[in-house]
C-alpha cells in the first residue's frame, strides 16, 4: 500500500514537472537561441550556443530602438495606471456616499459598458479622434486608457468602499477636514489592497496591449514596446538570432516585475477574475 502510494506520488511529480518543462520550453528556446547566429539556429535550434556572445542583444537593442520604446511604454503605463486608480477611487467614493439620481445612472451606465468589447468601439474611436487630428499622441492614448479602464475600476472600488464604516469619516469631518481631505487622508489609505490589485491588473493589460496603441500611435518614435517588437519582427523576419534577442529584451522586464511582486500579482489576478 505504502509502496503504491509512493509510486503514484512519484508519477504525479513526473507528470507535473514534465508539463512544467513543456510550458516553459518556448521561453527557454528563445533564450538559448538569442545567443546564436542565424546559421547556428537553423542547423540545430536545441544546441547550446558555442559562445555566450551578447552581439545579438546589442544589435537588436540599437536597431529596434529599445530605450525610446521602453520609455514610451513606461510613461504610458505609469500615467494611465495612476490616473485610473486615483480618479476611479474618487468617483466610486462619491457614488457610494451620496444617493443622487445622476450618480446611480452613471454607475449603472459604467457597469453596463463593461459588456462592450473593444472591437465594437475601435472604428468610431479612430474616426472621431482622427477627425479631430488628435491621433499619434501619447497623451491621447493615456486619455483613452483612462476611459477604457475606469468602469471596471469604479466597479471594483465601489464594492470595497461600501464595506467601510462611515463613522471614521464623520469623525474626521468634525475635526474640520473637507470632503476631499477626508477622502485622501482617511479613505484612500484604507483602499490600499484594492488599489494594489487594480494597479497590477492594469499594468499587465496596458503594458502588453497592442490593438489600441497600434491604432493611435502612428509614427515610429511614439511606439510602445509590443508595437516596436512587432514591427522589428516584420523588418528582420528571417534574422532569427536578432529576433530572439529582441523577444528576450521584451520579455525580461515583465519577468523582473513578476519576480518582485509575484504574490500580489497572483492575488490581484484572482480578485479581478472573480469580480469581473
Amino acid at each position: 500500500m505504502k509502496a503504491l502510494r509512493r509510486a503514484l506520488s512519484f508519477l504525479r511529480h513526473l507528470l507535473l514537472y514534465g508539463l512544467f518543462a513543456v510550458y516553459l520550453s518556448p521561453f527557454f528556446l528563445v533564450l538559448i537561441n538569442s545567443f546564436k547566429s542565424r546559421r547556428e539556429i537553423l542547423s540545430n535550434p536545441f544546441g547550446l550556443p558555442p559562445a555566450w556572445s551578447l552581439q545579438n542583444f546589442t544589435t537588436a537593442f540599437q536597431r529596434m530602438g529599445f530605450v525610446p520604446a521602453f520609455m514610451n511604454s513606461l510613461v504610458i503605463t505609469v500615467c494611465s495606471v495612476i490616473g485610473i486608480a486615483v480618479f476611479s477611487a474618487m468617483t466610486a467614493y462619491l457614488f457610494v456616499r451620496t444617493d443622487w439620481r445622476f450618480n446611480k445612472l452613471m454607475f449603472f451606465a459604467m457597469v453596463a459598458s463593461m459588456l462592450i468589447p473593444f472591437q465594437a468601439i475601435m472604428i468610431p474611436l479612430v474616426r472621431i479622434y482622427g477627425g479631430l487630428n488628435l491621433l499619434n499622441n501619447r497623451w491621447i492614448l493615456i486619455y483613452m486608457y483612462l476611459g477604457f479602464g475606469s468602469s471596471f475600476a469604479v466597479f471594483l472600488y465601489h464594492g470595497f468602499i461600501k464595506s467601510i464604516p462611515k463613522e471614521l469619516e464623520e469623525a474626521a469631518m468634525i475635526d474640520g477636514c473637507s470632503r476631499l481631505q477626508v477622502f485622501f487622508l482617511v479613505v484612500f489609505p484604507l483602499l490600499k489592497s484594492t488599489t494594489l490589485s487594480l494597479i497590477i491588473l492594469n499594468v499587465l493589460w496596458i503594458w502588453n496591449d497592442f490593438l489600441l496603441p497600434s491604432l493611435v500611435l502612428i509614427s515610429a518614435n511614439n511606439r510602445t514596446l509590443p508595437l516596436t517588437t512587432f514591427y522589428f519582427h516584420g523588418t528582420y523576419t528571417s534574422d532569427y538570432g536578432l529576433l530572439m534577442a529582441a523577444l528576450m529584451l521584451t520579455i525580461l522586464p515583465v519577468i523582473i516585475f513578476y519576480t518582485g511582486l509575484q504574490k500580489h500579482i497572483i492575488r490581484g489576478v484572482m480578485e479581478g477574475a472573480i469580480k469581473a
Partner: protein
Amino acid sequence: MQAAEKRFVEKLKTYLLFAGPTTLVFITVIILPFLFGIYLTFTNWDGISKAYTFVSFSNYKTVFQDAAFWTSFLRTVKYVFYTVILVNSLGFALAYALTGNRVWGQNLLRTGFFVPNLIGGIILGLVWRFIFSNVLVYLGRTFNIGFLSYSWLANPHKALWTLVIVSVWQYSGYMMIIFIAGLSNIPRELLEAATIDGATGFQRLRTIVLPLMVPAFIVTVFLTIQRGFMVYDVNLALTDGGPFKTTQLISMHVYEKAFLAQQYGVGQSQAFFLFLLVAAISLTQVYFTKKLEVEV
C-alpha cells in the same frame, strides 16, 4: 428657490470635483464612440471622403450576405469550442494536482504555469511562430516524424490548431489560479469525512469537489468564451490569418473590413454583431451566477 439653487450648485461642485474627470473620459471614450458607431452602421463611409450617405439597413444586409464573414465566424466558434474544453480541463487538472496533496515545489510549479499570462499576445505569438516554423520542423525532420516535418503554419488544415495550442498554453495557467482559489475554499472536514466513510479519491472528486466547483467553472468557461471571441493579438502575430485566410478569426476580419478594405460601415456592423454576441454571453453568465446564488 434660492436655497435649492445653491444646494444644486454645491452638489454640482462636489460631483465635478470627485467624478468630473471619470465622467468626461467615460463619455468621450466609451459612450460617444459607441453611439457614433451605431450611426456609422447606417452609412456608407469609406474612411477618406468627407461626404457619405445614409444607407439604412444595407450594411446589415451586406453582412448577412458576406460569406467570408460567416466562414470566419464559424471558424471562431470552432476555435472557441476546442479552446474552452481544453483550457478548462487542463486548468482544473493542474489546480487539482497542485492543491491538497503534498507536491514538492508547489509554488514553483504554479508560478511556472502562470508565466505565459504575464506576456502580451503579440510576443507570445512571435515566440510560437519560431517554435512552429523552426523548432518543431527541425524535430520532425531529424527524427522522421511525418506530421512535424513541415510547418503547421503553412498548412491550411493544421494552422487553426496552432492557435488552439497557443491559447491553451496561454490561458490554462490563468484558469488554474481561479480553480485553486475555488478548491482552497472547500472545507477540509467534508473531504475527510468522506474519506472516513470509505470514499475513493475519484468518488470524492465526482460527488464533492466537482459540484462545489460549479461557480468557479461558470467564471472560467465564460471568461474563455469571451476572450476567444475577441482574440486578435495572437492571431496577428502567429498566423496573420494565413495561410489563405484559413485562420482569420472574427476580430481580425472586422479589422480588415474597416481599416484595410475601408468599408467602415460594413466593418462597424460586424463589430456591432460581435458586441451583441459578447454581451449576450456575459449576460448569460450573470444569469447563471445569480441563479446559483439563490439556490445555495
